[in-house]
Every structure is written in structure tokens, then in C-alpha cells.
């Protein structure tokens, strides 16, 4: 759904307003880096659902995708490096890691999920489950 844009605002505008990832109450993260919920596009094609998640600075080695009890979790650890020998002059954003989870419906076939990372974007392809196989129930005679 389209977002309401703001025409003014602090430098960097809405793109720099990152959303922190959800966290269970009362817990802390061990790493001292912000964790954001990556922006996603979820697109439905004829035979699959595709998820694109923005995770700049994240390579294939830094990505973790897990599926447990229909919960799909995306995690990305970014390679962050600060230019050496220079002082920060003007910082609009703080680089961090990424985390977000989705609950999948039964319409997805978990065995066929494909994932790849390119240009700091995680692409997931979730094939739709085929039509349910009819179950034959045997009726025993007494």
C-alpha cells in the first residue's frame, strides 16, 4: 500500500526514518548495533509469492532465512565499514542489521522456497502449494 509522503522534514526525509525491528519486551540484543525491519515488497505472480527485502551492505554470507511453524524469518548482518582517517561531518543514517518475520499461509509450499541476495536486496521466491491431493479414507467393515 502506498505510503503518505512528507514533503519537508529532517534531511534524508522518510527514507532515513528507519523502523527498528520488533523485540520481545524486556530483552536486549547482545550486538551493539541497531537492528531494523527491512522494507519489503511482496508480489504475487501466477505460481509464486515473491518477497524483496532491502538489506544494503548484506551479502549472501550475512543472510539467514528460516522457516519454522509457518513463520518465515529473515535476518541480515551488514558489512559496515567507516572510512578511515576521516572525521564524521554529517551523518543522516546509522547502518545496522536487519530482521523481520512473516507468518505464511498454507498456500505456500515450504519445500520449494528459494532465496538469493543481489545488490543489497534479498529476493525470496515462495512457490504456491499445488492443489491439495485428495485423501482417500478407507472405510472398514464391521
Amino acid at each position, binding site marked *: 500500500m502506498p*505510503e503518505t509522503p512528507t514533503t519537508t522534514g529532517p534531511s534524508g526525509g*522518510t*527514507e532515513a526514518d528507519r523502523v527498528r525491528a520488533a523485540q520481545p519486551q524486556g530483552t536486549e540484543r547482545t550486538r551493539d548495533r541497531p537492528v531494523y525491519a527491512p522494507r519489503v515488497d511482496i508480489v504475487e505472480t501466477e505460481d509464486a509469492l515473491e518477497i524483496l527485502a*532491502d538489506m544494503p551492505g548484506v551479502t549472501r554470507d550475512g543472510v539467514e532465512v528460516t522457516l519454522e511453524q509457518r513463520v518465515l524469518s529473515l535476518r541480515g548482518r551488514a558489512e559496515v565499514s567507516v*572510512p578511515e582517517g*576521516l572525521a564524521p561531518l554529517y551523518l543522516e543514517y546509522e547502518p545496522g542489521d536487519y530482521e523481520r518475520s512473516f507468518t505464511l499461509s498454507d498456500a505456500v509450499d515450504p519445500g520449494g522456497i528459494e532465496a538469493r541476495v543481489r545488490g*543489497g536486496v534479498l529476493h525470496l521466491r515462495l512457490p504456491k502449494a499445488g492443489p491439495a491431493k485428495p485423501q482417500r479414507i478407507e472405510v472398514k467393515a464391521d
Partner: protein
Amino acid sequence: MRPVSFFGGDPFRELRRLQDEMDRLAGAFAPAGGLAAAGFPAVNLYAGRDGIAVVAELPGVEAGDLEVHAHQDTLTIAGTRRPAAERAEAYHRRERRSGAFSRTVQLPFRVDPDRVEARLEDGVLRLSLQRPEEDKPRRIAITG
């Protein structure tokens, strides 16, 4: 505009104010909901005596769709990000903006437009801008 402060205070306040002005102007003419209105990309600037380093996050932007140029003491990062799908009805969720963007950033000093190094890797753009030779601070010999 050169930020200068001899008696304390924040020498970069002027820089930030100028940047806000520039973003406001750019945003006013940008199509609503697009990348340009959002002030994309967000940038981090680092400066030394002889140059400036810029880091910006541009996930999903191809190098071929990106243009970077420096002129005097401004830097422009412009390009296009392609949408995930062609048809709007195909989206279940659409949070990633797409379309054309152009961002002009104010630098604290002039840079050499012919010596800009740019590298785009994993959605992160890193730029290295050099000060022209004649602008570099010189050590003044003190006699006496």
C-alpha cells in the same frame, strides 16, 4: 558557504540548514510518494583535510542506473530504481519506493570533479572526493 566558527558554537549548523533547504526545494517539485520526495538516498559524509568520503545506501539500484557528479562544492547522486513488479495489483505489500531520484548534497569545500571515485557494492555506494590541489591548506612558514 563556508562554515566557520571562531568562538565556539556548531560550525556545521549552517551546513545542515543549507542541506535542509536544498532537500525542501527538491522535495517540493518531486512527484508525491516517489523516491525523490523522500530525500533518497540518505548520505553519511566524512571529511578530512584533503578530501571527503560519502557513503549512501541504495539497495536494488543497478550501477548502470546511477549517476554521480560533483560540481564546485556540491555533489549530486541521481538515478532510477526499478519497481519489483509491473502491475500495481500484483503487490500484497509495497514499502520499497521506486522511480527516479536525484539528491544534491552540500559539501564543506570545493572538490575536483574529475577525481571522483565511486564504488557500488551490495547496495552501498562509497564515494571518494578530492580537494583540488590549489585548495589544499598550505603550511605557512613563520620567520623571525
